[in-house]
């Protein structure tokens, strides 16, 4: 009984369930309450494409990214197992694909036959690797692990929370969350027309692992003497890798379904036997490959020669504390959304075009949603690529060496909107919540004359730019809700040598 259930297919299913649950758990605990010492960015660190692209842009294999060597080595031995055994997006695609097509009459054999469309992912890989080689890390747009982490953080988890509020204390809101949610749903819905469309046709990580599994030691083999050409092996094939004919090793996800589906026992996984069928090499057009890589190379100078965050400072581009200088930041940021998940005040948000095209979905602080919590350094702890470097509290608050606290921006008063300045109304909430000691916000007591001739003693706030760290709690708590009377601007941020205004500090 047990040995009948313990088929290779079921073992793969167990692994897939385990890794999907692990992914959701790790993302779920990515927060102040439950993080403890867990390696929350584990899946991102296992991702070889992230590691290679980030290595190309900045020349280092950062900390946890070394874990991806395990996946690369494993792929050389066992084939492209990552896609159906570990990858959360692959597993979600697989589950939805089989559900979409379970209750309809579809020709799964036709759907699972190899198509030349599947070459697309190699071209996308060439495009993004070429961009990375020049120094622009755009791979996170389509790399499945950042893609799925970002989608879950920004749209799936918040949407689930809306049904009962059991995930967060306060409903998280994200900049352009609907857009990201729609992209994710489109990827899922594509399985309705072509199972695992994303994995087979788009996924650049799949392409990289496909290249690595060019000649794996162990793979699927078909015995040509036993095979009766019934094509039943195609019925549940994940990769669309043609196990019924000359297997395309680079497309095979090692899902093991063909082995269990074969009525003749003609398919096995392991080393070749005497009557094993020949395999086909990777199917790409060299011309297309060079063309797309060239496209990446051509796009790079265009990305870098526009008004964007790398060339021109923007007031509303407040990066999380510990972020590298903008150019280096763009070289390292994957747009994975880990920092957005961990931020306790929901301040860290995916950028739309604030940082230019290159900075799409990179993190920035929106102070009307949240603010940078004074005693918090969690975003640097979870960043898998070090775009936000891990800080100690001493370093952030300037309590050790150097004695200067880390600034992410500077607050400015809009005296036309500030209640004491514009309307002679008591307020100074900003002074109350200012977390530094001594407070960066101070006030002057003045006697003002009111409309009816009476006088009133009023406290009017001022800002000390040398003490302000740009945390934005003043903007967040300002009673002028829609556009606060005190707002953070990125000028003065510690990470930038150029975005400064004060001579002496």
């Amino acid at each position: 009984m047990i040995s009948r259930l313990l088929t290779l297919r079921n073992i793969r299913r167990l692994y897939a369930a385990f890794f999907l649950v692990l992914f959701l758990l790790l993302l779920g605990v990515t927060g102040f309450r439950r993080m403890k010492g867990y390696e929350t960015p584990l899946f991102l660190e296992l991702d070889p494409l992230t590691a290679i692209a980030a290595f190309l842009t900045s020349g280092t294999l950062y900390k946890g990214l070394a874990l991806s060597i395990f996946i690369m080595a494993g792929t050389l031995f066992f084939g492209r197992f990552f896609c159906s055994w570990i990858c959360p997006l692959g597993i979600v695609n697989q589950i939805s694909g089989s559900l979409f097509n379970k209750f309809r009459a579809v020709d799964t054999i036709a759907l699972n036959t190899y198509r030349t469309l599947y070459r697309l992912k190699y071209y996308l890989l060439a495009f993004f690797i070429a961009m990375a080689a020049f120094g622009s890390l755009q791979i996170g747009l389509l790399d499945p692990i950042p893609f799925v982490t970002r989608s879950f953080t920004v749209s799936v988890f918040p949407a689930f929370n809306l049904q009962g509020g059991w995930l967060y204390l306060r409903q998280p809101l994200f900049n352009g969350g609907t857009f990201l949610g729609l992209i994710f749903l489109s990827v899922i819905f594509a399985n309705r027309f072509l199972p695992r469309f994303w994995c087979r046709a788009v996924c650049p990580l799949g392409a990289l692992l496909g290249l690595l599994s060019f000649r794996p030691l162990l793979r699927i083999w078909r015995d040509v003497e036993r095979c009766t050409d019934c094509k039943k092996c195609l019925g549940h094939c994940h990769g669309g890798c043609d196990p019924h004919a000359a297997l395309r090793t680079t497309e095979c996800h090692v899902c093991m379904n063909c082995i269990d589906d074969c009525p003749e026992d003609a398919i096995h996984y392991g080393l070749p036997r005497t009557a094993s069928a020949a395999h086909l090499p990777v199917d790409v057009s060299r011309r297309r490959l060079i063309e797309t890589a060239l496209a990446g190379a051509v796009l790079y100078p265009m990305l870098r020669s526009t008004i964007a965050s790398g060339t021109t400072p923007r007031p509303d581009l407040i990066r999380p504390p510990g972020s590298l200088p903008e150019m280096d930041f763009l070289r390292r940021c994957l747009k994975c959304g880990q920092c957005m998940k961990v931020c306790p005040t929901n301040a860290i948000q995916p950028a739309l075009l604030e940082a230019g095209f290159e900075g799409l979905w990179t993190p920035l602080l929106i102070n009307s949603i949240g603010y940078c919590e004074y005693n918090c350094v969690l975003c640097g702890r979870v960043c898998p690529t070090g775009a936000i470097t891990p800080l100690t509290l001493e370093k952030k608050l300037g309590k050790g060496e150097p004695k200067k606290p880390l600034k992410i921006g500077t607050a400015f008063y809009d005296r036309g909107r500030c209640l004491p300045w514009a309307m002679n109304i008591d307020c100074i909430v900003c002074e109350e919540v200012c977390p530094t000691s001594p407070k960066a916000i101070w006030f002057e007591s003045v006697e003002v004359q009111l409309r009816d001739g009476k006088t009133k003693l009023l406290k009017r706030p001022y800002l000390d730019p040398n003490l302000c760290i740009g945390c934005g709690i003043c903007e967040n708590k300002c009673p002028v809700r829609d556009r606060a009377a005190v707002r953070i601007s990125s000028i003065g941020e510690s990470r930038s040598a150029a975005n400064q205004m004060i001579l002496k500090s």
Partner: protein
Amino acid sequence: MPSKNDKREPVLSRRDFLLRTAATCGAVAAAGVWGYVFYSKEPVRRSDTKIYTFRDYRIADTKVYPQLAVVHGRDAERMVRAAVDKIGGITRFINPGEKVLIKPNVAWDRQPEQAANTNPAVVAAVVRLCLEARASEVWVTDIPVNDPYRCFARSGIEEAVKRSGGKIRLTQESDFLPTDLKGESLKVWPVSGFYHQADRLINLPIVKHHSLSKCTMGMKNLYGSLGGQRNRLHQDINTSIADLATAIRPTFTLLDATRILRRNGPTGGNLADVSAGDTVIAGVDLVAVESYGLRFLDLKPEDIVFIQMAEKRGLGTSDWKSLNVAEMTL
């Protein structure tokens, strides 16, 4: 030549005609009923939301016990016990089976030594006292300014409360209930629903400096029951505080003056801003407790507008010396 699309409609029989007419009349009647029932001059349908009011959490007054207990010492647990004992013991205030809500000040993501939040040892001692009085539930709640999880964890209060057997209740958006404070500047505000579930309320403030109201203690601590856009309260802070103290009458107040935040309040953040007070003050009269506490900030009741307002409204006396005060040192 006949059409190729020659699928024909069957001829209508009398029976079908009657049935169809009846069905059409039925549909028209249904539309009429729908219009009759739902016709309204309002663009949006409103359901009547219940407006709550605060219950009086106090117990019957008596002159048997001292009205104010002041205990100096170092051991928070013993000080709290002594102070509550002096004003009549916890069983005077809490009957077995009652739900007790404890409201410390947990507004900031700060550590206990920085004295921005109530001392966790004081909170734990009060939780234990309530459980000894056989309260059915002991809840500790606040609506912080910083992230609630961080505030409760890093103030040490979450750990202290869990260890002493109480329960932390954090307020979610859905927990707020519209409540009429019937005040001069505070009318209907969203209030944490726990206040309407509890039978008794124990106010556990800490003594802190505050730039606008000069000090924050027990009355200002009640800010932490409000949701909504409470940052607007600063515009008339003294009336707002007096309104809160009028609307919410805690069972008793125990003022934590073990550490005093003397400058840079109410956030602090620097140990240089903190000095030792080594005192707890207990009493039912919030105004008296608060007036006593002013000495730690070198202030007098005459300086504080909201204390004057509260006294004028008859909420208590700022002349605490006129009361029966029990002072002791442990």
